[in-house]
């Protein structure tokens, strides 16, 4: 087991664990703090904490759950320190998609979704990000965010309700601004009215 090897001081385990989980952990942090530079610092700090707390990992949870727990605690501390999530202009936030020469419509759509996720209260955002981007079920989310299973369900339903409202508002705004229908549908993706 990777953590057991880390505990025994095996440097080779570092390569393996980082390569295996780097994308997931980084994407999670970026989605939580919405600022690439901060996310890079938190990414580094997360992995250092992995080394420091490897002795305390009992092994009854998945490694990914444990990693997300560490990253989430750091994100929470950061958000608490900053006071709220920083809203970064699109051109300063770094690329939203990995594909080179990306379709500008896709960029718009990505930006809409990102804004909606970032406008959610932190506790709801945690649940939404873990569920939709990291495919966790409610029990895993409860373990990661450290709250009862029922609370996760409540937060999820509230988040969806809030997202629906935001979606309606955005759709109305686009209509008022007379954005062409094909751009509207591209930006708003598969959401229903």
């Amino acid at each position, binding site marked *: 087991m990777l953590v057991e090897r*880390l*505990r025994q*001081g095996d*440097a080779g385990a*570092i*390569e393996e664990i*980082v390569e295996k989980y*780097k*994308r997931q952990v*980084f*994407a999670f942090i*970026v*989605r939580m703090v919405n600022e*690439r530079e901060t996310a*890079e610092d938190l*990414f*580094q700090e997360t*992995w*250092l*904490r*992995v*080394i*420091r*707390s490897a*002795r*305390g*990992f*009992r*092994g*009854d*949870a998945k490694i990914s*759950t*444990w990693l997300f*727990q*560490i990253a989430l*605690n750091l994100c929470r501390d950061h958000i608490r320190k900053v006071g709220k999530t920083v809203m970064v202009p699109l051109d300063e936030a*770094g*690329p*939203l*998609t*990995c594909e080179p020469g990306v379709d500008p419509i*896709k960029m718009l*759509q*990505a930006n*809409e*979704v*990102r804004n909606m*996720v970032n406008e959610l209260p932190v506790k709801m955002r945690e649940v*939404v990000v873990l569920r*939709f*981007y990291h495919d966790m079920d409610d029990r895993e989310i409860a373990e990661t965010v450290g709250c009862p299973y029922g609370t996760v369900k409540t937060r999820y339903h509230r988040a*969806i309700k809030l*997202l*629906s409202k935001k*979606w309606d508002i955005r759709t109305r705004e686009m209509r008022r601004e007379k954005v062409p229908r094909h751009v509207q549908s591209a930006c708003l*993706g*598969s*959401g*229903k*009215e």
Partner: protein
Amino acid sequence: MEKWSDDELRALFHAYEVCGPDDPLVERTKRLMKEELARQTVAVPVRLHGWMVVLLGIALLMALNLFYAMTVGTFLRLALPPEWTQILTSSMFICAAAEICLVAGTLMIIVFTQLRPAYERGRLST
């Protein structure tokens, strides 16, 4: 608005992709992790050394108590009136009992924190 299904929401959310982390960041992180791991491996004997100091401290305290019993205690036993002998004897018993408690407490701490397997210490410590 109609209710969204999980799949529809997932498809919608996946429009927001995140790139990275960049290779230099990953390499830097790995280097820092290796340094931290090396530091942690070296740190273990230092921790044990701390416990040695505690045990030495307790041994010193016991030596002082013996010194008290054999010199000051003996002198006082001779100098003080016979009715004080009982108080003097009790004070020595109290000192000895306090030291036994200290030694037992230290040993228990060592057993429960140092000798217990790491995986039994707490659940997910972050």
